[in-house]
């Protein structure tokens, strides 16, 4: 397997066979950057609980633009939501004042890690969603999908809410259907002063899929982000979040739910930095792990010097449904300011036998009892979705997931 590892050298070699790339991005600069940053190995702290790193050199490629009349099968549709599909990283809809596709992609000075730079190297362009308080559209559904393409795609989405803007966004990673889905996505979100974003990100993977999402969020003063992140994963899903509460009074509520299956892997690495006084974060992450699935929660909260009156709470709760399932939970606090409130907690266990007996003593079978308890555990998160139509969609995915449990 060693020959298949994705190393900076292997990337450089691969890129030599893809001369088209040089037409759209500064290839030597980006290769240099990858060389400096390196690409993860399982020996690194941030990767040591993963079973494998993501992608192989031969997965790297430049997908062609999709034909404009491609028929799409989208699982979610609703009249209140503008749909903006992204296929193999390309747009399918014409540009609008709010949503544009920018090529060449921005160079992005904020170099995060090698995978992010890999996205910069291979992405066909940046989808820029820019909203002001006067924007006529307020609800956007962005499905990301691959169309008959089994090599890596690198979509890039850049969301900017200007001061005082209010937007609802549903970002949906669709799984591979007719073939595998390999996706290395970069998302950046900037919330201006007083902006409010309600965000649902749903990442679905089928058994051989690999979805890696690097997401970078900055919140200015008095902005608010209510975010539900669901990982419905039979393949591999990893989210690397770096979140900065930049301005005074910024608030983040992040509710995460991992519903795993088979030998799927669900991974959330989050770093939430409280940079200014009176900033608030609530991070609640739950996972349900059946069969041979594998969950990782690595949640770091940093309180910068001077960020007094920070209020940060984090909790991670996981249910193991099988003796072969594994969960690695690692909450961390780094506090460099006085006068702050920070708490974190982590609990991993099995279904509570007292709860099971209580339900069975009321006539429910063990299967019905388990379903009810799992639904309750998951609903706690999904009920945070503020839209009836999206909640009912997520409930249908929950029921489908539960029906497939062994």
């Amino acid at each position, binding site marked *: 397997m060693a020959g298949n590892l994705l190393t900076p050298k292997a990337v450089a070699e691969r890129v030599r066979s893809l001369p088209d790339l040089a037409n759209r991005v500064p290839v030597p600069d980006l290769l240099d950057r990858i060389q400096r940053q390196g690409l993860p190995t399982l020996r690194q702290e941030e990767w040591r609980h993963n079973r494998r790193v993501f992608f192989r050199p031969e997965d790297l490629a430049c997908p062609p633009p999709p034909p404009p009349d491609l028929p799409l099968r989208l699982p979610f549709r609703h009249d209140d939501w503008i749909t903006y599909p992204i296929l193999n990283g390309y747009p399918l809809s014409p540009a609008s004042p709010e949503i544009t596709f920018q090529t060449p992609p921005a160079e992005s000075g904020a170099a995060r890690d090698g995978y992010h730079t890999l996205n910069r190297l291979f992405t066909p362009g940046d989808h820029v969603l820019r909203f002001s308080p006067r924007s006529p559209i307020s609800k956007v559904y962005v499905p990301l999908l691959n169309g008959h393409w089994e090599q890596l795609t690198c979509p890039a989405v850049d969301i900017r809410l200007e001061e005082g803007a209010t937007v609802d966004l549903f970002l949906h990673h669709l799984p591979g259907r007719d073939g595998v889905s390999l996706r290395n996505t970069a998302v950046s979100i900037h919330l201006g002063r007083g902006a409010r974003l309600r965000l649902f990100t749903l990442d679905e993977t089928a058994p051989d899929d690999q979805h890696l999402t690097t997401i970078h969020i900055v919140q200015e003063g008095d902005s608010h982000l209510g975010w539900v992140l669901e990982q419905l994963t039979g393949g591999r899903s990893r989210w690397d979040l770096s979140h900065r509460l930049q301005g005074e009074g910024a608030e983040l509520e992040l509710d995460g739910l991992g519903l795993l299956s088979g030998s799927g892997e669900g991974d959330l690495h989050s770093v939430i930095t409280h940079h200014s006084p009176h900033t608030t974060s609530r991070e609640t992450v739950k996972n349900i792990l059946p069969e041979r699935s594998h969950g990782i929660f690595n949640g770091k909260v940093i309180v910068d010097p001077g960020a007094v009156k920070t209020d940060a709470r984090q909790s991670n709760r996981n249910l193991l449904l099988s003796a072969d399932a594994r969960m690695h939970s690692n909450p961390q606090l780094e506090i460099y300011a006085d006068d702050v409130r920070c708490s974190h907690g982590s609990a991993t266990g099995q279904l509570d*036998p007292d709860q099971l*007996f209580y*339900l*069975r003593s009321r*006539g429910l079978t063990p299967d019905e009892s388990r379903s*009810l308890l799992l639904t309750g555990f998951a609903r706690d998160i999904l009920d945070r979705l503020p839209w009836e139509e999206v909640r009912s969609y997520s409930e249908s995915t929950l029921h489908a997931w539960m029906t497939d449990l062994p």
Partner: protein
Amino acid sequence: MTPTLVIDQVHASVDGQEILKGISLEIRPGEMHAIMGRNGSGKSTLAHVLAGNPHYEITSGSIRYRGKPLEHLTPEERAQAGIFLSFQYPVVIPGVNNAYFLRTALNAVRKARGESEIDAVEFLQLAREKMGRLEMDKSYLNRAVNEGFSGGEKKRNEILQLLLLEPAFAILDETDSGLDIDALRIISAGVNSLRDSRRSFLVITHYQRLLNYMQPDVIHVMIDGKIVKTGGKELALTLEEQGYSWLETS
């Protein structure tokens, strides 16, 4: 008439420790029996053994319910056959709506009785009527099962289930603990409304005061996993005056 319940020399243990040390008891249709005893005497163990809690193991003896062996039935089969346990410590189930839970439980039992399933609208009507009798606020339907309920509210929710499920045999495990006099009166009236010539009850309590409201036919005293004394109503009064120690020495 076939007795509702016949317990014959039952020994039972939890985690390898014997708690019930040879219990025998017979309850006939229409009867209410009370078991009194101190903490740790085995009363709750008996309740859980009857409801089929897998944590408890019957090591010897037999239990017959309406003429058939009970030991090999699962908890849900017992519930479907008409056995109901009102828990001393009702379990909190976060995220599960109380109305949904109650309706699911009712439909599981109705299905077993060969009755049709009840829909959400019919159920709401029925639940509201029963809640009215227990002076329970309707908002309890929309909360998660027992989540944030006070001790007394949890007990009312148990009795609400009793009224909805209408079991043939109900075990009330310390339903009176944590209740004030008013709540005790309301809950007892709810229980008494179900008493008829066929339905049987086993009431477990520390205190004689519950028996002022529920009027059992037979009273048993349990000490160290055995029934040491059986009598009528007057036995409860004697216990109230003299405690349990005169029985321990006898």
